[in-house]
């Protein structure tokens, strides 16, 4: 399995209803919805464990505390896409 690309090889574009990441090393383009993008950002700060991501997101949004399964799903997708 390929390792995630180094951060410097990812170019990110974000807008209100989502974002896109372009991997310069592989040429792949990833389109993310807002939630998954937020999970990616949080995981990069605190590590890719669901509880840590939930806790970080919950600092600014109480509803994140109830979305553990959704966070887990997002982390699985990000891992499968080799973004984490």
């Amino acid at each position: 399995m390929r390792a995630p690309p180094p951060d410097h090889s990812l170019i990110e574009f974000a807008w209100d209803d989502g974002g896109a990441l372009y991997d310069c090393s592989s040429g792949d383009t990833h389109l993310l919805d807002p939630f998954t993008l937020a999970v990616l950002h949080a995981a990069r700060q605190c590590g890719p464990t669901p509880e840590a991501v939930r806790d970080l997101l919950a600092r600014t949004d109480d509803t994140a505390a109830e979305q553990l399964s959704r966070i887990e799903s997002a982390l699985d997708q990000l891992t499968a896409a080799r973004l984490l």
Partner: protein
Amino acid sequence: MTPDPDPRVKQAPPTTEVSGVRRRLVRGGLSAAPLLVTLTSRPVLAQTCFSPSETLSGTLSHKADDLPLCQGRSPGVWKNVADEEVEAFKRWKKAQAKHEDDGNVDWAYDEDVVAQAGAFISWPIPPTDAFHSHFTQGSHARYYKRTNGEWKPLSLLEVMHLTGGDDPAKIGFHFVGALLNIRVGLVDPRAMTEQRLRSLWAEYATQGYYVPYAGATRWYAADIVAYIQQTGLASY
């Protein structure tokens, strides 16, 4: 962006970077499953390839985002490169001979010239290597020539010059091309390796056909060549 005031939102600690965009991102679409779509880039000229035993399932044998890719050169390209380099070598030797007052040398294409030029040819394997030093001989495939009353094995490059019944379906021609492509890394090893290529040849050479998997139809020379061409081990 200026965050919207919302009584549910906690004030972030001063040392933490708070993104108003992120707050909206988390709150939006609470019941929808997370969405991530990947558009995979692929080399333009490469084609998905698979081993002979996978011809029944094809690319379904592999994950959609991790398919084996092969972009083997045409065997003709390898042959032409070697031929051009032999000609360049002959011109160089002629120029040298003229300079040394020996301008009447007749440099016909022969194994001695190729042998001398061999070091200058950009193949990953010497073109003067005997074909059967890489691919076994059998009752259905023996590449030899009679020279001065002796049987001598044909070289890889000489096999590529065979025509008609001397190389049925140009199978030897394609196997040399495939071998060279594998050697320089143009073939995904999940589709074919040098060892498996030699095994495929060995079965063909001894039986006259190859069976890719149990119960499959026999592959004769033309079928094997079609597999090599269509999967990019050695393109058309």
